[in-house]
């Protein structure tokens, strides 16, 4: 799966005859360079990647950006709130040159600052959970496939059980029961705990076919141990699916975090997250102040879409057999 044969054929710099006669120092291309060349041609994926970069910058630079605007995420602005309806004064949620995304109904806190700091929380939890679940899924999946026997049965059945759970209810119950030491960390662990079997299954399946390849036998005949074979021979061949599924799991995890916050077990106030804002908006404000839902909803929409488009493009670029160029 990882030998990009077509890519080699169209590779004009690495003429097979030239290599054969050992003529000159012909620059070779690594599999990654070939994937990058393919990815670069995919405008949609590059667009998605660009949006992701901007989002990450937006989250990282939240303190700078809010200072630029001039209002922190926790400062109340009661003077901007209609005392009767508790809605922001002015059109579209109070959008103005001072408050770029308007203000929160009820409190008058600045929406731009809350979205920016919310991006930090949402991305941190989604990326953190993805990292943990990819680590678990890749390690356990590879071990299950290579060791086989009882280890395989144990890991595979565990994955089946987790996948069979109604995850949202399970997560709700877990958050309620678990000690509240650090809500963000707890959310990362819980989301990772329910999402690792997705990647674990894919990795196990791929590793099962890789372990039958002759280079694994060759490594054994050179005296390599099981750990070397699993993590130095097999796993590097799985980096492509790992990368692709990571970029596809991140948006799912953002949505899971949103859902948990929406249901009231996410990050706790006054910390903002996009899901928490959606939840507040859904509690009745959105009928009289739709902007309160549109801003966090739009942020989630753009983020999830960008990650999905980038992930799809990455998959096409890394899989030489894909027909879409």
């Amino acid at each position, binding site marked *: 799966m990882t030998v990009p044969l077509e890519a080699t054929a169209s590779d004009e710099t690495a003429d097979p005859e030239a290599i054969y006669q050992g003529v000159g120092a012909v620059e070779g291309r690594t599999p990654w360079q070939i994937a990058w060349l393919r990815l670069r041609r995919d405008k949609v994926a590059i667009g998605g990647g660009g949006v992701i970069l901007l989002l990450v910058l937006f989250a990282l630079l939240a303190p700078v950006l809010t200072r630029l605007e001039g209002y922190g995420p926790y400062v109340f602005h009661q003077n901007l709130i209609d005392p009767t309806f508790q809605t922001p004064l002015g059109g579209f949620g109070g959008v103005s040159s001072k408050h770029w995304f308007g203000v929160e109904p009820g409190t008058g806190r600045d929406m731009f600052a809350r979205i920016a700091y919310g991006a930090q929380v949402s991305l941190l939890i989604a990326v953190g959970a993805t990292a943990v679940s990819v680590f678990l899924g890749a390690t356990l999946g590879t071990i299950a496939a290579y060791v086989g026997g009882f280890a395989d049965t144990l890991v595979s059945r565990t994955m089946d059980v987790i996948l069979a759970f109604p995850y949202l209810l399970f997560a709700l119950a877990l958050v309620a029961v678990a000690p509240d030491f650090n809500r963000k960390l707890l959310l990362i662990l819980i989301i990772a705990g329910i999402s690792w079997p997705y990647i674990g299954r894919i990795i196990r399946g791929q590793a099962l076919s890789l372990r039958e390849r002759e*280079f694994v036998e060759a490594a054994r005949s050179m*005296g*390599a141990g099981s750990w070397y074979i699993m993590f130095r021979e097999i796993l590097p061949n799985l980096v492509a699916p790992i990368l692709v599924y990571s970029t596809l799991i991140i948006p799912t995890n953002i949505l899971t975090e949103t859902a948990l916050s929406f249901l009231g077990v996410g990050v706790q106030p006054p910390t903002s997250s996009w899901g928490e804002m959606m939840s507040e908006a859904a509690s009745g404000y959105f009928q009289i102040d739709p902007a309160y839902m549109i801003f966090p909803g739009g942020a989630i929409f753009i983020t999830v879409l960008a990650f999905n488009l980038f992930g799809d493009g990455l998959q096409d670029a890394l899989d030489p057999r894909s027909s879409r160029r």
Partner: protein
Amino acid sequence: MTTNATPAGKTTPAEAPKPSPATSEDLLLEVTDLKKHFPVTQGIVYQRKVGAVRAVDGITFSLRRGETLGVVGESGCGKSTMGRVVSRLLDPTSGTIRFDGRDITKLSQRAMRPLRKDIQMIFQDPFSSLNPRKNVGAIVSAPLHLQDIATEHGTKRRVQELLELVGLSPEHYNRYPHEFSGGQRQRIGIARALASRPKLIVADEPVSALDVSIQAQVINLLEDVQAELGLTYIFIAHDLSVVRHISDRVAVMYLGRIVEVADQVRLYEQPMHPYTHALLSAVPVPDPVKEGKRERILLYGDVPSPLNPPSGCRFHTRCWKAKEMCKTVEPPLLTIQPGHQVACHFPEERTLI
């Protein structure tokens, strides 16, 4: 070293086929009654053993230093399994393997690891035997790292020397396998096998996946490095002409057993076993006149299942000479002539090529 092994077996009838104690010093590998059975199980939770595929079923041979033993046979006769058991990639079911004077039959995989630098393999499929995510430098230097072999001028220099030895450019060090043709990849595989300076190389159909012009190059390369480094080969193939070219001695396998072993000249010119006759009569001769006059022996039916091999002589179901005795008594591998062993009740000399 390679050339004098052949006439020695033929011209001096005094030399015993079974090594006398004096010559056992020269023996690199001794395999005695080696068996490898793969269990066939049934059931989901409790796996009941219902039978065994007798892939290798009692083979005995020995190998002198610097010698090349060719192993031929049909698909599924157990030749590849034999190679993997000898190099201890698979655990033998029974029998003994003595390598370099040491019994390695029962060594655990862990205990085997330091010994692996002395036994290396060359694999059949050059597209699958090189890790596509590693560059040539990492692939060829892997045995050096894994075996902690110190090199005089550093690992990179050693890898580049190896690449030159197998006819590749040292500049290919940073390249990836996908940038090479099948023949070049096989050279990389050979360079990797040579890296740890092994004593024995088990080549499992090393040229079967290559086209004919490249086959010749790779075979000549294998012969050259053998002469240069004094290697011993077990050369597994199903192409009789390739085996004839490279081997000092040839073993013919049928259904998990060796049916005939002889030095290369004898086996091709005076084969004794009917199965060898049939195999050789299938080799095309590049001369239409001769080819037209030649006798063809056609075997009917398929190779019987190694799950349930025929009684007596395993070949009796397809043998045109089979008598009642062949169905009941298994013929032992007997020495007919010095250096020529045949497992047949009715051996006869026959010229087929």
